[in-house]
């Protein structure tokens, strides 16, 4: 059904003006008339008509200028201008178009053609109005979404906190929007001195990915702080994601367990592109995907086997999300693995590598990309630093005198990690809390020694080169799997006296024992990180002794009474 419009007619000839307004009014539209361009602009401002019929040549202000001004006043809104002209020269017609004219009609006016043009222009008007309304709606919604993302990210940051991503030996690049692109980057310092780093990439984008990231981060940080092993953390994260994610969603992830005290790196990669271990001499070891991503397999089917590599001071670890390799530039070219490998090959100074990759990405895309994540962890002396300290609880220390004995036999040695439990027990003793990190580190070293060298009879000399390293951990796994008998005994005793108190940890195992004094001498090998265990234990404790048969060690932590 034709719509009634308000139409402005600008025509200097009174006869033509009369004729045209009669035709238009008869068609049911409301008519406004102007005798020149100036009047037309003034009337337009006053009445905001929806369509203008404009003569080109008029006194005071011609139709071209009036059309330009009206278009400007109309702004985004489409106010169609139909030029009334008997001009036939192309140049004049082009002038009409340039002034913003949308159509022409020539004299003599045919009422049917005129109405057809008016209605066509009206449809165009409505279309334009719809597009504008939708554009504004989309812009508003997008703004809302960005605001919500900002708020959600702020909440996420409170829950997940930055962990130790800001440690001096870590460099990373990840945009604040990354969370909503499904990327997740976590790093935590464990009580025993390891650093755990997780790079995750959820399938899909937006809210679902961000919501999935939340429990993952909580599990990671919560368990890392309590001293759980990387295997336990990994299994728990997989189980949690399997439980909460819909079937079609999963999380590709690489988990690094960096142990500077033992000089070991444990890597689990499920579905992410190769990461790299880069030696100080530039030698590069890819850390490839060996597993299905997190959240697909049930706990029973999940494969938690890590790969082991030796680590030395000066080594670097580089992880990247597939956004790096799969990103495309404005010419739709893929950055690709080849470009990345060329960069790695060309690098002559590992310390510059991170910058080189960033620069190459920037040069390739011409702008900063917000859907890729990149992290580099370098092994420097500071990594082995500051052990964890747990805040004191607010109650007065009372006299204490207890001891606890644990004997872990084959089945428990195979499946369990008793250390988090023991740490929680010891943290009940207030004066020990400031030294939680040191105690945990010592417990970890003693336990690993007793298990690997004592019960399993592994020779740490194997760990001297990369192959032997891998072999060592294969043997560890095999022997642990096959373990039928053997035990580790742990005795914790705590006693307070007037001047303070003392914790004694004694550990013994069913192994053949070893020459402790000899081992202490052998282990003075500075450039190799592995085998610093016993020295470290000695440094961190206030007393260190051993049984003559080398099957048992004891350490002490003492404290002075509060003033």
């Amino acid at each position, binding site marked *: 059904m034709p719509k009634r419009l308000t139409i402005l007619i600008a025509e200097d000839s009174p006869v033509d003006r009369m004729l045209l307004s009669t035709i238009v009014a008869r068609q049911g539209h409301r008519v406004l008339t102007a005798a020149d361009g100036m009047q037309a602009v003034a009337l337009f401002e006053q009445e905001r008509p929806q369509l203008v019929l404009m003569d080109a040549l008029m006194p005071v202000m011609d139709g071209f200028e009036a059309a330009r001004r009206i278009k400007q006043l109309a702004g985004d809104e489409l106010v169609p201008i139909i030029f009334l002209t008997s001009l036939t020269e192309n140049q004049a017609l082009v002038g009409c178009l340039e002034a913003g004219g949308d159509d022409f009609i020539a004299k003599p006016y045919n009422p049917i053609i005129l109405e057809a043009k008016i209605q066509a222009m009206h449809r165009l008007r409505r279309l334009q109005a719809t597009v504008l309304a939708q554009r504004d709606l989309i812009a508003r919604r997008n703004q809302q979404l960005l605001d919500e993302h900002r708020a959600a990210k702020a909440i996420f940051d409170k829950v997940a906190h930055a962990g130790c991503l800001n440690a001096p030996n870590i460099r990373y690049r990840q945009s604040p929007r990354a969370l909503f692109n499904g990327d997740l980057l976590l790093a935590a310092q464990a009580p025993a001195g390891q650093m755990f780093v997780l790079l995750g990439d959820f399938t899909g984008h937006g809210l679902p990915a961000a919501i999935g990231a939340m429990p993952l981060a909580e599990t990671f940080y919560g368990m890392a702080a309590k001293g759980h092993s990387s295997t336990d953390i990994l299994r728990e994260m997989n189980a949690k994601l399997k439980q909460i994610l819909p079937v079609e969603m999963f999380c*590709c992830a690489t988990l690094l367990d960096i142990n500077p005290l033992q000089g070991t790196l444990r890597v689990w990669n499920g579905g992410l592109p190769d990461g790299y271990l880069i030696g100080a001499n530039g030698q590069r070891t890819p850390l490839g995907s060996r597993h299905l991503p997190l959240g697909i397999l049930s706990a029973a089917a999940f494969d938690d086997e890590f790969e082991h590599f030796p680590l030395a001071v000066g080594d670097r670890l580089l992880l990247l999300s597939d956004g790096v390799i799969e990103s495309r530039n404005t010419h739709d070219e893929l950055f690709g693995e080849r470009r990345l490998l060329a960069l790695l090959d060309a690098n002559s100074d590992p310390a510059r590598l991170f910058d080189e990759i960033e620069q190459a990405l920037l040069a390739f895309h011409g702008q900063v990309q917000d859907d890729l994540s990149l992290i580099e962890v370098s092994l420097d002396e500071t990594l082995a630093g500051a052990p964890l300290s747990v805040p004191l609880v607010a109650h007065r220390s009372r006299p204490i005198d207890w001891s606890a004995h644990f004997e872990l036999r084959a089945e428990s040695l195979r499946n369990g990690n008793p250390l988090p439990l023991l740490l929680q027990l010891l943290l009940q003793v207030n004066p020990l809390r400031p030294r939680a990190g040191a105690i945990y580190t010592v417990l970890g070293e003693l336990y690993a020694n007793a298990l690997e060298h004592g019960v399993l009879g592994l020779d740490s000399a194997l760990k001297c080169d990369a192959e032997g390293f891998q072999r060592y951990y294969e043997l560890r796994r095999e022997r642990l799997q096959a373990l039928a008998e053997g035990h580790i005994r742990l005795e914790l005793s705590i006693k307070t006296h007037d001047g303070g108190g003392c914790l004694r940890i004694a550990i013994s195992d069913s192994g053949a024992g070893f020459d402790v004094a000899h081992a202490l001498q052998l282990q003075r090998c500075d450039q190799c990180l592995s085998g610093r265990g016993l020295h470290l234990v000695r440094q961190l404790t206030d007393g260190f002794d051993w049984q003559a048969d080398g099957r048992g060690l004891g350490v002490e932590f003492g404290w002075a009474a509060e003033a």
Partner: protein
Amino acid sequence: MTITSQLSADGRELTIAISGRFDFNAHQAFRDAYQRQGASPQRYVVDLQGATYLDSSALGMLLLLRDHAGGDEADIRLLNCNVDVRKVLSVSNFEQLFVIA
């Protein structure tokens, strides 16, 4: 992207053929291909001969099919993968869940 599906004469094997980009846009069509009324095939074949590209949401769709087809008991073969497609599948270690040939 086009997806066609064909049930074998004995009704026991459903072949889903995908050509073009296998990505999020294929979601509904891929679901429709295996959620046929009345059909209950025991084996599935996903023919990727014409598939030029596969993204992580396509991996998700394959997991949905696996779930639909009985989870750990599902018998699904992914056939005729080109080099790029095979690379995506192998980085994610999907050969542990599907027979890839």
